[in-house]
């Protein structure tokens, strides 16, 4: 509808219809007449009534049969409509035949044409047609929005696409193992629900917390392999940054952010470290335990040498998650090269960085190498020879005494056997 006249007509239509319906339902004292606009419309009604007479009559006529909720067609499909819910719904102002265009008279034709939402919702339909859901469902709109007669605005808590309801709506398909298998999808629903986002939505009821739609979009959901998708690797910082603006700014200034912006797809984005759906609170033990190997999946050499250190040995045992992980020293989002004066691992900042855990850290203390490699003679000669000497000692002592004790054992056993239990002592 365009233009003020059309708008006016529309409003008049709604009010007039309410008036009629209320009468139809034998409800007196309708609120439609209790406020100013209602009165205006009531005044205009006689003029407009004639033009909409047929539509109103049609809806009333349809509901005279279809208000029976148990009504079924010949094929056994429900053709009943809950009139109250429908009138409250976002489509409540429409006439039945606005959507059910193929039904023009009674008795109805044998085969009614499918309702085409696209007639009104062209933009959404276009988006959907290009999305991963394009070919998935015969009823793409109602799969998510529910029965067309009960659709509410997305700001309405009754709506299937209300922010707090979205995970459950998407989950109707995405938590189904059979569907996940059919389409080769990971079962992310339960993982998401246990995440910090899922918790915020389902337990805290936070409307601003990320739900499925926040990251994936709604109608035009694209594969994460599609460069236009908000979940495409290089778009992820912006997607997360829509809420986490401060972190995105830090990330963009760090080596990883710059590398991704420079087209290096190997550099990590938010979801590489935090994961996409199972996002954990970073201070939780589980996150601290899982994330070091994530850094190590790229920084293999550094990870291997870290694993040789006390920090890692402690850290792996769990229950003591305070030991230094990668980001405790290197920073998390704004990681800078050690040569950068702002880097926490710049030599000038080490006393402060190490001092966060080691209260008495001093200049000599911070010469400790958190990535020392005792197997590398060129890189760490004193350490290499220390390990070499200790291993030499270990194996020479054990080697000599193993042989010594084994031979002794055999000899003593034989001695015992030769002597015989009763003769043994006399021969000694």
């Amino acid at each position: 509808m365009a233009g003020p006249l059309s708008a006016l007509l529309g409003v008049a239509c709604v009010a007039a219809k309410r008036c009629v319906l209320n009468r139809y339902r034998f409800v007196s004292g309708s609120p439609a007449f209790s406020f100013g606009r209602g009165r205006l419309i009531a005044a205009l009604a006689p003029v407009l009534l004639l033009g909409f007479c047929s539509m109103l009559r049609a809806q009333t006529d349809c509901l005279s049969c279809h208000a029976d909720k148990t009504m079924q067609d010949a094929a056994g499909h429900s053709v009943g409509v809950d009139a109250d819910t429908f009138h409250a719904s976002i489509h409540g102002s429409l006439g039945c035949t606005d959507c059910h265009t193929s039904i023009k008279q009674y008795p109805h034709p044998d085969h009614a044409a499918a309702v085409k939402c696209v007639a009104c919702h062209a933009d959404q339909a276009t988006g959907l047609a290009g999305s991963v859901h394009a070919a998935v469902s015969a009823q793409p709109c109602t799969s998510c929005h529910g029965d067309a007669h009960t659709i509410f605005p997305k700001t309405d808590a009754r709506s299937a696409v209300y922010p707090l309801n979205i995970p459950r709506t998407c989950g109707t398909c995405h938590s189904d193992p059979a569907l996940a298998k059919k389409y080769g999808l990971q079962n992310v629903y339960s993982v998401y629900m246990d995440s910090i986002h899922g918790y915020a939505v389902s337990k805290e009821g936070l409307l601003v917390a990320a739900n499925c739609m926040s990251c994936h979009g709604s109608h035009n959901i694209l594969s994460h392999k599609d460069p236009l998708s908000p979940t495409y690797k290089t778009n992820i910082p912006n997607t997360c940054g829509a809420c986490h603006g401060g972190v995105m700014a830090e990330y963009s200034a760090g080596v990883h952010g710059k590398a991704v912006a420079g087209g290096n797809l190997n550099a990590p984005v938010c979801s590489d470290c935090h994961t996409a759906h199972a996002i954990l609170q970073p201070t939780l033990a589980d996150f601290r335990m899982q994330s070091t190997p994530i850094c190590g999946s790229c920084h293999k050499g550094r990870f291997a040498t870290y694993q040789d250190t006390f920090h890692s040995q402690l850290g792996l045992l769990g229950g003591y998650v305070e030991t230094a992980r990668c980001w405790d020293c290197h920073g998390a989002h704004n990681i800078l090269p050690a040569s950068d004066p702002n880097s926490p691992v710049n030599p000038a900042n080490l006393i402060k960085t190490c001092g966060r855990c080691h209260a008495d850290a001093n200049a000599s203390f911070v010469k400790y190498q958190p990535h020392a490699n005792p197997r590398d003679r060129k890189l760490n000669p004193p350490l290499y020879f220390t390990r070499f000497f200790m291993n030499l000692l270990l194996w020479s002592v054990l080697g000599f005494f193993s042989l010594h004790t084994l031979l002794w054992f055999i000899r003593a056993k034989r001695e015992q056997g030769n002597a015989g239990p009763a003769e043994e002592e006399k021969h000694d």
Partner: protein
Amino acid sequence: MTDQTPTVPAEQPEGQPQDGGQPQSSAKEKYYVRFTLAQRYLHVVLFSSFLGLAATGLPMRFSDNPAARFFAREVGGFGAILFFHKFCAVVLTLAFLYHLKDLATRALVHREKGIFWGPTSMVPNWKDVQDVIGHLRWFVGLGPKPQFERYAYWEKFDYWAVFWGMIVIGFSGYAMWFAPFFARFLPGWALNAVLVIHGEEALLAILFIFSIHFVNTHLRPDSFPMDMVIFTGKETDEEFRKKRTLEYQRLAAQGKLEARIGDKPVYWWENFARVIGFTAILIGLLLLVLTLIGYFGTA
């Protein structure tokens, strides 16, 4: 043959010392004192704290091992493990310092020269070198079995291995515990080195004690299943003659043998010690298996 001899009457006509039902026999069996009560207690403190250190240290050394993680989780996580490790370390340190004090008292106050040289000393001498060679020759049937004095060469090695081990492991351990303090005297790389030293020396100690020491001292056929002398402090006349022939002969020649005679170990004490000792050996063997799994599972 601590345990087996009493069951062989033909060989021990004078009595069955551990059979409480025949008091006239046990009265005839002679027992000689080998270790003082303080020395025996020191051994208990030593192996208890060592087992504690090994049980808590191994999970740290092999922290990627599932058994280590399981153990750590069950006892309350790494914090509990490190606390217990440090607790045992302090106990062992105190025991070590007590031993040093004892040595100093005996050397400086009592002027006991025998602790530094001579047949009763722990200090290795030329005879020990000969004994090593002689013993090895006997193993393979190339010579007679050597006779030993108060401390045989492998007992001296046990002693010095523990002595050296406690200094090395203790020092490197305290260097990690009080790293910022030690960093004032040590170069930066030493803080890396102490972990390597601590871990490797501890591995040596664990492997040595739980295999070599166990077999040499307790599990070899002559002593199987356990040499009780370290718990009771006393050994039978026959054990003494057989295992430490030279000491026995020397004391006999000097007429000092009678002075060493002690009472027969109390029955309940011996059994109690046996329970403690076997528990320690079983824990040790379990730790040995876990150590080997950890070492060869990750190497």
